[in-house]
């Protein structure tokens, strides 16, 4: 069920009305409604996967209790590792088994040891990477004592299945999410209005920007070898904007939907298009995943390797970004993507300049910031080619073309139709940077006419430009 579909509109309207009328004074009622509606929402995609989530959820529920009630550190660690391995095995089977088997068969064939070639078509449960990581993080937090094991099944399964976030995050930490359902949610008009604004901005980013840029970007990636360098560079920049609009659009709709139910979710993007270097970019891009990777993978690794100084930190960074790449999918292109991101980090680690919050003023400082922002954007756009490439051959061909002839020729991309919405999108992204979402400031405008004019401009653009209704979200594939 997509956020921008008639089914979801009907579904959410029903949940919303029941939640704030029949169950408005009952925490158990609100929780039960959320759990049942989440089951319906996820089951709408494929009921088989509900069984998988049910098994995974039950396992993690029990393991967290076992971890918490054991006094012995050794036993706690044993249960924790059992949980981590089981979660990784479930994820590995559904997401990576086919890829590993085919890669192994190809390698053995190269060595003259043919393995019977079977192509596994294992259906990928939507959101599996998101909820598996959420569960692993939960077990680690319970083991560390930063979260308590939830012993109320309805609350726990609401945490696991909660429909605004189940398909593509944000990856919620238990200590953030559970307290917000430990109380009766009261109807607060301001929070609900803010949720609507955030949903509106997400819908605009998805339908107008992401879906509008999609055919332009797809055209270039079909045959990158045929395009001049200028087209490929522009195409790479457009893809980064498309991906951002697609995923931040989804995230804003998810967070906005949840706000309308009185439950705040974690922020997922902090204006990454305006990042000032690679580390700044990853602090702003898909924050719930990168902070997960930093806390649960990078920190223990860097801690273990800290006696080796910067080389140790560099190794921890490389492994972490390799994991970020592999998390996105079972394809060599994601491994290349992760390695590139790790390599881009190394100069910062080597120079000790991973932190960019050096304040300053003046024209020279401003010009430097703009140059750093432009350079980072172009660098990330070039590296994200590997996120979009269907294969190593396509990615290599794309990169070869980028350094090939035709850099100063007119790009063969007709952006004319997209120019106005694109500029409007980037302008509001710039004005809304540092805010909870891009329409936060708009919501606080005192002039009613101005506020509603901006909403009207957004709605008109959605009506005018969205011509691919029903398009799925890119991150559902991850």
């Amino acid at each position, binding site marked *: 069920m997509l956020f921008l579909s008639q089914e979801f509109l009907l579904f959410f309207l029903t949940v919303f009305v029941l939640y704030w009328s029949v169950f408005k004074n009952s925490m158990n009622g609100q929780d039960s409604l959320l759990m049942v509606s989440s089951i319906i929402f996820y089951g709408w995609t494929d009921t088989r996967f509900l069984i998988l989530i049910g098994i995974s959820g039950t396992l993690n529920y029990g393991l967290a209790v076992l971890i918490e009630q054991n006094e012995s*550190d050794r036993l706690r660690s044993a249960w924790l590792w059992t949980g981590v391995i089981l979660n990784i095995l479930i994820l590995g089977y559904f997401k990576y088994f086919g890829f590993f088997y085919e890669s192994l068969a190809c390698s053995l064939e190269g060595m003259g040891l043919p393995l019977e070639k079977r192509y596994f078509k294992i259906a990928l449960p939507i959101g599996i990477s998101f909820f598996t990581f959420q569960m692993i993080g939960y077990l680690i937090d319970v083991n*560390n*004592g*930063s979260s308590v094991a939830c012993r109320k099944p309805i609350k726990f399964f609401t945490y696991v299945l909660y429909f605004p976030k189940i398909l593509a995050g944000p990856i919620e930490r238990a200590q953030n999410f559970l307290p917000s359902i430990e109380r009766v949610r009261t109807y607060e008009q301001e929070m609900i209005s803010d949720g609507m604004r955030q949903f509106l901005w997400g819908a605009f980013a998805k339908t107008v920007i992401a879906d509008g840029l999609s055919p332009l970007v797809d055209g270039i990636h079909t045959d990158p070898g045929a395009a001049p360098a200028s087209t490929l560079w522009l195409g790479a920049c457009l893809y980064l904007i498309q991906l951002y609009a697609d995923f931040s659009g989804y995230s804003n709709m998810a967070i906005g939907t949840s706000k309308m139910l009185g439950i705040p979710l974690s922020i997922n993007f902090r204006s990454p298009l305006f990042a000032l270097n690679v*580390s700044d970019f990853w*602090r702003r891009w898909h924050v719930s995943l990168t*902070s997960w990777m*930093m*806390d649960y993978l*990078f*920190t*223990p690794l*860097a*801690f*273990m390797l*800290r006696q080796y100084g910067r080389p140790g*930190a560099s190794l921890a960074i490389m492994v972490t970004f390799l994991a970020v790449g592999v998390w996105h999918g079972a394809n060599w292109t994601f491994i290349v993507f992760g390695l590139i991101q790790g390599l881009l980090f190394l100069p910062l680690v080597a120079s*000790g300049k*991973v*932190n960019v*919050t*050096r*304040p300053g003023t003046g024209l020279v400082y401003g010009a430097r910031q703009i140059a750093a922002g432009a350079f980072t954007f172009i660098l990330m756009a070039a590296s994200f080619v590997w996120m979009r490439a269907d294969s190593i051959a396509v990615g290599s061909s794309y990169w070869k073309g980028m350094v090939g002839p035709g850099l100063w020729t007119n790009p063969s991309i007709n952006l004319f139709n997209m120019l106005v919405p694109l500029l409007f999108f980037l302008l509001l992204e710039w004005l809304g940077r540092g805010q909870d979402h891009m329409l936060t400031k708009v919501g606080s405008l005192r002039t009613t006419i101005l506020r509603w004019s901006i909403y009207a401009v957004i709605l008109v653009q959605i009506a005018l430009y969205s011509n691919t209704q029903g398009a799925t979200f890119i991150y559902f594939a991850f």
Partner: protein
Amino acid sequence: MEKNDIATRIREVLIAVVGHDRFEMRDDLTAPDVEGWDSLTHMSIITGIESAFNVRFKLREINKLRNMGTLIELVQSKLSA
């Protein structure tokens, strides 16, 4: 070593890593209160504190830290061990 002396040295390490002194040392200070103290710089801060006091932490001890107060207590317990 006195609690205040430990806090002063930790403050120096923090300033060296995050590059500014726009924070106030108090027991309930947490990483999000200090601009630039995030997962990536956290390990530099921890190793900086280890060098400053010539102590070694365990990962479990680091994971259990809740705020500046618990960090100062941890350093104090290491120094008196």
